[in-house]
């Protein structure tokens, strides 16, 4: 068992205070939701009827899932492609992925009308014609898969040797299963909108939208790994084994991958416009907004990544990663909220309500705290003393 050094420190750090405030108010809002229904967190009026998916779905689920793609991307790179030099970031990536998915499901539980029925598509009745059916199954299965992938760390922490052995043995199978699931549900999140050609703005709507979501999720996953490794290096120094040089090397390698992923993403987005022949929309204000997203948040970071890789500047790569993450969030919100139902009168379109936004933030904060808790205890960024030599 590892000792947690944070126990000796005071709990009253500024971060903890802010986190506590967010969680406390969040708990109050969650109480409102579970005492007076979804109307309790602002789902009222024509806006909620025409825009049934609010922040909990559009942000926590739609953005949370692609930003948790790091686990499957790094798993593929290391275990399938055999890029052993990234082995050290696999575990943290899987942890981030697992927590990300878990809290996306938590948000979902807050949002659906009868949360206790969430397993229904798995056990009661199968709506096989629905893309959401895929998402439900895949998220559930993938969450389990990620637990298997991450379980060696938990078993090391708990010192359950036999269980660890089993978990390690099934690792490759789990990774392959995870890749299949991820390919499908990352794209399925986009494909959810295939059926709404009258609602999603034509610039964002495309028959390729599933592919767009998948490719951008790869970029998002890589960028989250870049950011997570850097932040962990900074804030959990005593827990991180990696040297600064090694981290920079990994960052540059990941930056290269991210720049390629973004270049592909940019190219298929442009081809998507050509495919739908929606060029003329670009000249409108909403077209400029689209161009801002496409040029400012995917082409620009792509170029920054490339420059950072070429000039060996990990800091630049980290900034580009941040920009990409923002870009993915912007894209998902554009599809599901900002340009959704643009032709409806304002009172029927999405309206931000502080309670829902707060709840959404609180879920994110809970995810961050869970991450901190795990990193402080489990062998995530370092090897467990007992298993130094094996991997």
């Amino acid at each position, binding site marked *: 068992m590892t000792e947690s050094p944070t126990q000796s420190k005071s709990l009253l750090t500024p971060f903890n205070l802010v986190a506590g405030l967010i969680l406390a108010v969040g708990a109050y809002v969650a109480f409102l939701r579970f005492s007076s229904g979804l109307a309790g967190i602002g789902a009222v009026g024509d806006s909620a009827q025409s825009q049934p998916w609010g922040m909990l779905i559009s942000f926590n689920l739609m953005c949370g899932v692609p930003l948790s793609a790091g686990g499957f991307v790094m798993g593929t790179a290391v275990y399938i492609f055999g890029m052993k030099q990234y082995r050290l970031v696999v575990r943290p990536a899987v942890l981030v992925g697992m927590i990300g998915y878990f809290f996306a499901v938590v948000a979902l539980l807050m949002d659906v009308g009868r949360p206790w029925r969430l397993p229904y598509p798995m056990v009661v009745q199968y709506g096989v014609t629905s893309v959401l059916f895929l998402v439900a199954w895949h998220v559930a299965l993938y969450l389990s898969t990620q637990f298997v992938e991450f379980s060696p760390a938990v078993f090391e922490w708990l010192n359950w040797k036999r269980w660890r052995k089993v978990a390690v043995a099934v690792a490759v199978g789990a990774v392959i299963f995870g890749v299949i699931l991820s390919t499908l549900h990352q794209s399925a999140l986009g494909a959810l909108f295939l059926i709404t050609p009258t609602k999603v703005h034509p610039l964002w709507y495309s028959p390729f939208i599933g592919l767009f979501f998948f490719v951008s999720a790869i970029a998002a996953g890589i960028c989250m790994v870049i950011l997570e490794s850097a932040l962990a290096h900074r804030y959990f120094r005593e827990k991180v084994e990696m040297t600064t040089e090694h981290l920079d090397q990994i960052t540059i390698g990941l930056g*290269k991958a991210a*720049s*390629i992923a973004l*270049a592909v993403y940019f*190219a298929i987005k*442009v*081809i998507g416009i*050509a*495919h*739908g*022949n929606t060029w003329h929309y670009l000249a409108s204000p909403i077209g400029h907004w689209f161009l801002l997203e496409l040029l400012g948040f995917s082409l620009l970071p792509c170029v920054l990544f*490339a420059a950072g*890789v*070429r000039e*060996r500047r990990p800091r630049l790569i980290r900034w580009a990663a941040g920009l990409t993450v923002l870009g993915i969030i912007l894209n998902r919100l554009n599809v599901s909220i900002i340009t959704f139902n643009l032709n409806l009168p304002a009172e029927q379109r999405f309206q931000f309500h502080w309670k829902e936004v707060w709840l959404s933030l609180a879920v994110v904060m809970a995810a961050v705290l869970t991450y901190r808790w795990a990193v402080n205890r489990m062998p995530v960024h370092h090897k467990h003393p007992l298993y130094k030599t094996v991997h």
Partner: protein
Amino acid sequence: METTKTLFDFMTYTKGVTYLLAVLFMVGFTFFWLFLVDRDKK
């Protein structure tokens, strides 16, 4: 320029543009790759 009236015309046009773009991106990619790995070789 008249608006397109048939699927055939629409596809003729959009396919033309997408193929052209795809070729351009392929060429562009080569240079982008060379730009990326340029320093690795030295």
